């Protein structure tokens, strides 16, 4: 499975990528904001997006809304990793098109469960 990790924090990208590698995922590309992520989606194969919410230039919510405007990416699994864990935050994320949600801080087990949940039925899913 090919994964795209989107986060403005190089630390969080590294933590997420380290976690994904522990879970057996090795096909990982990264982007530091929503605009860069859109470029990566246009150029690279991506089976699952893992994105932050709070980012400069283009927030995670804006990025997800942009992705969902493309018919070919309506079903692309998107997981949001963020500290915004209130009920209203989750509603806003789901309304934007996020499939599931990982609240920071998170364990590898939580990440594994969420990836399984959003990729169930997706060809090549973990």
């Amino acid at each position: 499975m090919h994964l795209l990790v989107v986060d403005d924090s190089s630390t969080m990208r590294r933590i997420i990528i380290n976690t994904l590698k522990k879970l057996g995922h090795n096909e990982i590309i990264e982007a530091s904001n929503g605009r860069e992520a859109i470029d990566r989606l246009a150029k690279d194969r991506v089976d699952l997006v893992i994105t932050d919410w709070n980012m400069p230039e283009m927030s995670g919510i804006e990025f997800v809304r942009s992705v969902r405007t493309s018919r070919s990416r309506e079903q692309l699994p998107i997981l949001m990793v963020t500290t915004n864990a209130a009920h209203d935050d989750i509603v806003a994320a789901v309304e934007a098109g996020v499939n599931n949600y990982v609240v920071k801080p998170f364990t590898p087990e939580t990440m594994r469960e969420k990836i399984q949940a959003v990729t169930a039925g997706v060809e090549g899913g973990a």
Partner: protein
Amino acid sequence: MKDHLIAHLVAATHEVFETMAGTTLRSCPPIEPSAFAPMANVVATVGFAGGISGLVTLYSGFAAARAITGAMLGMEAAEVNGEMPDAMGEMANMIAGLFRSKLVAEGLPCDISIPTVTVGSDFSTRYGSEVTRVLCPFEMGNEEIFVGLALTGN
């Protein structure tokens, strides 16, 4: 400072350190200072505003900051260099985010800012006289860190 806010901050700090850095901290009694500022080389701050407003600040020395960063990223503390400010900002961000979630659950909706991190050896941080502050000290092995809460207009 209300005790339950301090309890929320301490609980959030423990959870973030244990989950993201695999580090168990030892809590020490909170300090409500009028002028006391911890000696720190790395100060990571996240603001929050809404039904309640203020700042969550993580203070540490260079050695502790490198140890925390190394633990987060799976590397030796001695190898840590340019990664440290961003990592400490993320730690403050997660502590403030968990703290904010607890406030929202209590009916105090607020949003948090992006983190800002100051690194150096000769600086101090000052607050206005209307700010209520508490500092929560923690022992991390032989190092001491502080997590501060400053509230405005409450």
